[in-house]
C-alpha cells in the first residue's frame, strides 16, 4: 500500500516537532526516515501509525484518508523501539495476541492461530523459542519476535521505530541484511526510523531526510548521495570536505575553483572526488600527506597545507582505492599535487 503525507504539522507546546511535511512512499518500498535525534522522525512514524495525532494535515494510506482512523483500523503493524513485548506472555502468546483479541466472528480458530504463529516463528527463524518469555531472549531475538507479532495481523504497512537502535554492532549488521531479505519476500510497504545514515543507505530503497521537523530531501540512496539538495543532506549522507569561500578563498582560487560565480557559497567536495599525485621532487611542497588509514578496499588519506596562511582547511580528506594508493608509494610528509573532479556549491 502506498503512503502519502500531506501538509502535516505537529507542535508540542512551543516546540515545532513537524513542519509542513509532504511525503509519498510508493507501494512495496522499504523507506527510511533518517535524521539526527530530535528531528521529528519518531513523531512522524507514530502519527502514521495513529499512536499520535497531527495538529493539521492528512495521512493517506492506499488512497484513503486515515488521519482520524484509530491505530487498529489503519492496517499497520508497528514495531516499537524497545519492542514492547508483553512481559507476562510467552513468545507464542505474544505473537498470537493480535489474532486472539479479534471479535469472535472474525477470530480464527485456535488451530489456525497455532499454525499461523508457527509459520511466523519459522519466518523469523525462532520457532524453538516459542515457550520462552521475553525476559529470556536476547535483544536481536526480541526484535524478531516483535516483528513477527506485528506481522501476525497481516498489516499492509509495517512501521519500525529505530529497529536496530538497541542492538550490539555485530547483531545489527546481521539483522539489517535479514530485514532486507524479509522485505523482499513479503513485499509489505515498510517505513523505519533511524539516525544512522549508513544503516539507511544499506537497508532502505528510499530515504527521507528530516531535520528540525522539515523534510530536507527524499529519494533513492544514490540520488541523495550524488545529488544532495542542500548542505545538510550533503554532510549528513556520507563524508564531505566543506570549504567556504570566505576562509578558504585564496586556496580555492589557486586550484581554479574560486571564481566569482559562487560568492558567499560553500563548496562541498566528496573525498573520492579528489585525486592526488606525487609532486615531482625539487618543487616547493604546498600540500603534504599527514596520515592515512587502510580501510580494506579503500584507503583514507589526510592531507594538510604546509603554510599557515594558504587558506587550506586543517585536514583535507581523500579516499581512493587501496590498490591505487599502493602504486603511488607515498609516505608521511611527502608533498602531493591534487586535482578536484567534482564540487557542489551550497548556501
Amino acid at each position, binding site marked *: 500500500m502506498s503512503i502519502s503525507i500531506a501538509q502535516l504539522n505537529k507542535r508540542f507546546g512551543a516546540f515545532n516537532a513537524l513542519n509542513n511535511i509532504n511525503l509519498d512512499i510508493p507501494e512495496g518500498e522499504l523507506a527510511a526516515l533518517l535524521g539526527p535525534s530530535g528531528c521529528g522522525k519518531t513523531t512522524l512514524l507514530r502519527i502514521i501509525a495513529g*499512536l499520535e495525532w497531527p495538529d493539521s494535515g492528512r495521512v493517506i494510506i492506499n488512497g484513503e484518508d486515515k488521519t482520524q482512523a484509530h*491505530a487498529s483500523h489503519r492496517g499497520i*503493524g508497528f514495531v*516499537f523501539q524497545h519492542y514492547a513485548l*508483553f512481559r507476562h506472555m510467552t513468545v507464542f502468546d505474544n505473537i498470537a*495476541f*493480535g489474532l486472539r*483479541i479479534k471479535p469472535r466472528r472474525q477470530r480464527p480458530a485456535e488451530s489456525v492461530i497455532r499454525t499461523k504463529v508457527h509459520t511466523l516463528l519459522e519466518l523469523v527463524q525462532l520457532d524453538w523459542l516459542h515457550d520462552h518469555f521475553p525476559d529470556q531472549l536476547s535483544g536481536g531475538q526480541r526484535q524478531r519476535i516483535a516483528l513477527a507479532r506485528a506481522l501476525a495481523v497481516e498489516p499492509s504497512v509495517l512501521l519500525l521505530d529505530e529497529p536496530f537502535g538497541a542492538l550490539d554492532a555485530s547483531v545489527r549488521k546481521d539483522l539489517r541484511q535479514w530485514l532486507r531479505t524479509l522485505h523482499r519476500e513479503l513485499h509489505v510497504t515498510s517505513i523505519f526510523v533511524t539516525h544512522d545514515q549508513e544503516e539507511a543507505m544499506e537497508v532502505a530503497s528510499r530515504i527521507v531526510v528530516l531535520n528540525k521537523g522539515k523534510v530536507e530531501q527524499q529519494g533513492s540512496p544514490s540520488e541523495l548521495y550524488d545529488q544532495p539538495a542542500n548542505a545538510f543532506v550533503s554532510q549528513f549522507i556520507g563524508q564531505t570536505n566543506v570549504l567556504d569561500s570566505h576562509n578558504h578563498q585564496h586556496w580555492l582560487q589557486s586550484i581554479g575553483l574560486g571564481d566569482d560565480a559562487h560568492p558567499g557559497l560553500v563548496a562541498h567536495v566528496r573525498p573520492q572526488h579528489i585525486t592526488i599525485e606525487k609532486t615531482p621532487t625539487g618543487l616547493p611542497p604546498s600540500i603534504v600527506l599527514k596520515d592515512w588509514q587502510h580501510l580494506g578496499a579503500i584507503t583514507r588519506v589526510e592531507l594538510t597545507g604546509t603554510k599557515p596562511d594558504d587558506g587550506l582547511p586543517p585536514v583535507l580528506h581523500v579516499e581512493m582505492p587501496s590498490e591505487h594508493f599502493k602504486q603511488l608509494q607515498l609516505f608521511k610528509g611527502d608533498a602531493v599535487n591534487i586535482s578536484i573532479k567534482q564540487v557542489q556549491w551550497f548556501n
Partner: protein
Amino acid sequence: MSTQIIVEQPDSTAAPIARRLAAQHDSLWVKYSLISLTLAFCTLFLILPLAVVLTEASAKGFAAYRQALVNPDTLSAIRLTLLTALITVPLNTVFGISAAWLITRFKFPGRSFLTTLIDLPFSVSPVISGLVFVLMFGAQGWLGAWVSTYDLKVIFAIPGIVLATLFVTFPFVARELIPLMQEIGKEEEEAALSLGASGWQTFLRITLPNIKWGLLYGVLLCNARAMGEFGAVSVVSGHIRGLTNTLPLHVEANYNEYNFAGAFASASILAALALVTLVLKTLLEWRQAQNRR
C-alpha cells in the same frame, strides 16, 4: 591498581592493599557495633511490643482469652471492622486504578498537582480526618439539617465510620500504582491497541497482569489501615458498645475500664492481622522483584 602499588612500594605490598580495603569496607568493630545497635534498638521498639501483646493476651489463660473474644461486644466490633474494610477497600481500589491510569497514561495540565492532592489525606492528622465529617454531618454541620430531615444517621453511626475510613485510606492504592505504572510505561498498551485490542481488552490482558502484584500490595496496605484506623474513627463513632465500636475502639474501651485481658485479647487479633499483613507484604515484595527482573 595493585600493580601500581607494588611498583611504588616494592617492600611492603600488604599494608597499602589492606588500607585500600579498609577504605571500602567498615572495620569489624564498626560492623559489629552497628549490628548490635540495630538489634538492640529493634528489640526494644519492635520485638518487645509484639511479645507483650502476646504475653498479656494469654496472661489470664486460654479460657479468659476465649471468653474475651466470644463476648458479644467483641464479636460486634469484629463484624463492624470487617464491614468497614469490605466497603472502603474496594471503593478506594477502583479509585486507585482510575487515578493511576489517568496520571500515568495521559499528559494534561495540573497532573502533578493532582498527584499531590491524592496524597493529601496522608498529611492530615487522623483526628482532623474525623473532625471534618463531624463538621459536615454533625448537628451544626452544613449537611446536618438535610441528614436529619431524612432521618439518616451519619455521625455516631456506621456511615460516618465508613466515610472517615475512606478518607484516611484514600491514597494507598493510587500511591502504589502510580510509580509502578509510570515505570512500566505505556508501550505495551500501545502495542496491544495497535494490534486491534479494545480498551478493556488492553486493560484486562496487558495492564492488569503487569500491575497485579503492586495492586495487591496497595490493597493489602489499604486493608491494614482500614481495619486498624483509630483516631479518625474515634471522632465519628460515638463509642456505642456493640453498635459503633470497631475493634481498635473496643481495645481502647476495655483498656480504659481496666479490663486488660479483654483489651489484649482484641489487640491480639489486630496484632495477628498486622503480622499476616507483614508476611503477605514480604511475599508480594518478593514476587514483584521477581516480576521486574
